């Protein structure tokens, strides 16, 4: 008996393909407009505006800046966002000769972090000031890492603590210790469960998408800002789709509409 042939394309995932294509097109269109010099408005993000100010405070006090790029592996997009922001922060600390401490939980994050920080020191013309131990591997265990960082905060008393990336149960342990140490604290994560803790214990908190927008916002590069604008228009599209869904479901004619967005 001939086995039933399986189609190459998974047609049940056509909805995802359409969204991917629209999303890519919108981002590319805005990037193209940005390349042509079209002026793009990006709303103010206080937490990011304060990064330079906070590093300046550390310089004046002669104390270090502590940066934690989350506790996840490098294959997590939040960690990549954290590493991108680390590059911008390292550029400012290198300019002002402010000590920078970057404890990490995974060796792959260590390698990426060292590369980014070294590049930042080279770009501001201070390659000799770069020290490989600025970014240091601490521990693979979640709470061993937390214990080390808490101890570091209480001993070194950094003037500024920046938490950018994926955080879990240790978020409040870190942020409260930083608070007790008297540091200015800026946090950013896309983990909704950890946001209340950061908001309670930090001076500024970047919520969800703001974390991913940070590298573009800090660099002010038109190409990156173009991508952000594209993302905003996708959000508008999703809001319209959600409102339509609410209307259809409320009038009990929404089954066909909901089936269009079914994830398989």
């Amino acid at each position, binding site marked *: 008996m001939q086995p039933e042939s399986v189609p190459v394309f*998974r047609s049940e995932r056509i909805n995802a393909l359409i969204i991917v294509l629209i999303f890519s097109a919108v981002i590319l269109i805005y990037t193209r407009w940005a390349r042509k010099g079209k002026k793009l408005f990006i709303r103010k993000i206080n937490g990011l505006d304060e990064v330079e100010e906070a590093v300046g405070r550390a310089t004046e006090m002669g104390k270090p800046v502590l940066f934690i790029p989350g506790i996840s592996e490098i294959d997590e997009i939040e960690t990549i966002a954290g590493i991108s922001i680390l590059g911008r922060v390292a550029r400012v600390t290198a300019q002002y000769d402010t000590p920078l401490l970057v404890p990490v939980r995974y060796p792959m994050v260590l390698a990426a972090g060292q590369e980014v920080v070294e590049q930042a020191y080279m770009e501001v013309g201070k390659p000799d000031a770069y020290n490989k131990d600025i970014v240091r591997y601490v521990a693979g265990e979640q709470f061993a890492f937390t214990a080390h960082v808490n101890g570091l905060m209480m*001993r070194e008393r950094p003037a500024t603590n920046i938490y950018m990336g994926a955080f879990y149960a240790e978020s409040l342990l870190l942020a409260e210790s930083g608070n007790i140490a008297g540091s200015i604290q800026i946090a950013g994560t896309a983990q909704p469960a950890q946001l209340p*803790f950061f908001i309670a214990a930090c001076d500024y908190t970047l919520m969800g998408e703001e974390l991913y927008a940070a590298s573009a916002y800090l660099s002010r590069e038109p190409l990156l800002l173009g991508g952000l604008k594209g993302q905003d228009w996708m959000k508008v599209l999703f809001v319209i789709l959600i409102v339509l869904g609410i209307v259809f479901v409320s009038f009990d004619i929404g089954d066909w509409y909901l089936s269009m967005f079914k994830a398989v």
Partner: protein
Amino acid sequence: MRTTVPVIIAFLSGFAMILLFFISPEHSKIGTVELEPEVLSWVTIVGGFTLLLGVVSILRVNYVAVQRKKEGWIYNLATLVSIFAMAIPAILPESWSPLLGTGTGSIYDWLFNNLDAPMMSTMFAMLAFYIASAAFRAFRARNAEATLLLITAALVMLWRVPMGEMLLSGIHESIPEKINTYIMNGANLAVQRGILIGAALGAAAMSLRIMLGIERTYMGK
């Protein structure tokens, strides 16, 4: 070259993963090997190679601190001793002695169960005290919004404990159900979903920027 090659690798890897998502598993095999889990397992292999970097980093940082007698150097010494105390008996073969290796009854096993695990639990348990101090600061009724937050938090906390639920039911039996419906599954869930949708879009946009080589900040560019 240092930028171009990683960008090409990022594009090809990202594009391959997207493609594999839309192709049925039967057609995404080479022989008997399924490509998607295979490609994902490469991350672990690369991670294995970088492990040595981590070991070198932790040893160097702590050794230098002990050598220069930096403030708190005793903790660095404790870290170095702990690393060797855990690693050496675990690396040596079990066939030499039942105390070696990582099996039950080994030195590694004893250290893990009697030192490592209790210390992790202690750290996690400390969270309760940190929550209390953070809540005290967050729930101070400084203005209208903070007062609203305080009232909402008090209601949710009462609803979460059996005695509180009993008290609320005593006032009116529908109150616990209303807290669940309007606060937890209403306002709270809606806001969480809003943040999640925004974060998912942000993550997708950033992935796309990385794939297309627009975003190179993760390489320090």
